[in-house]
């Protein structure tokens, strides 16, 4: 009697690949997220309005390590006036004695820019986070694709 024997080769390796893949993929996706946020940070620093550089210096990326937001990557702007540059404000007059909230006064700014008078009229804001985000979002699919391929290659070994 002829027996038909079928052997499936590589099953052990495939099983190992299927076990390893989710862990490697999760790690690579996390790395992709961190890279993306660091690129947004870099781009936002380039776009932020400058005088003493306090606003640009305050743009930081951090990873939440505990609590309900654990694992989330957060881009934060430490300077209290950052939101006004980003979202805008009603045009208004600022007295020279007022603080710029970056350790200086409006008078210091006026002196450096050879402005005279008892104050300045501010009306223009310069968004920096949204343009940076829009620019980097176009690269995100490529970034995710690179890291996914790396995870698959790593799981195959």
């Amino acid at each position, binding site marked *: 009697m002829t027996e038909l024997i079928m052997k499936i080769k590589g099953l052990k390796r495939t099983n190992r690949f299927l076990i390893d893949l989710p862990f490697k993929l999760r790690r690579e996706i996390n790395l992709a997220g961190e890279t993306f946020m660091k*690129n947004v940070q*870099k*781009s936002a*620093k*380039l*776009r932020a309005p*400058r005088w*003493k*550089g306090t606003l*640009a*210096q305050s743009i930081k990326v951090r990873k939440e390590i505990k609590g309900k937001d654990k694992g989330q990557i957060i881009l934060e702007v430490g300077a209290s006036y950052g939101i006004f540059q980003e979202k805008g404000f009603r045009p208004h007059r600022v007295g020279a004695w007022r603080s710029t909230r970056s350790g200086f006064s409006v008078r210091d700014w006026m002196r450096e820019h050879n402005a005279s008078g008892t104050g300045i009229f501010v009306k223009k804001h310069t968004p920096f986070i949204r343009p940076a985000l829009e*620019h980097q979002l176009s*690269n995100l699919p*490529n*970034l995710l694709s*690179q890291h996914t391929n790396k995870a698959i290659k790593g799981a195959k070994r």
Partner: protein
Amino acid sequence: MVTVNKASIAANVWETIYDRMLSDVTSVTITGSVTKTIQTYASSFQDKQIDNKASYPILVIEPVNLDWTPHTLTKKYSNGQFILNIYTTSSEAADKFIDAMVDSIETYRDTLLGLGLEFVDLVGTDSDNVQRGGFKLHMRSCTFSFRYAFTKTNP
């Protein structure tokens, strides 16, 4: 350039790449026989005055990122990435600088292997441009990966 050792991987790799860029990537010539020479080599982009056109080009060698993976019973791999950024006021110069940077790393791959850095490969590139006052600032970035094997401490 320094031989990489286990106790100071990040510092040694940064110094090696910095020395490589300092010697190989100094200037490029663009249309109109204009030469753009790098003004500053740094480890991070300045947060203060960036609106002075004469300060550019600036080459930034970012700090090295590392992670470990097991290799054998006695060895581990330190997998790393380093990112090189060029900031300049000319788009053509930015393209030529990025080519020079990539070419420098590729040409000296053998030398880098001799110092302990294995499989130095280009992972990807990036670009950005921003209007700063009276000029446009162009940024090009390239990311390289590498591997360094070292004897681990048991267990």
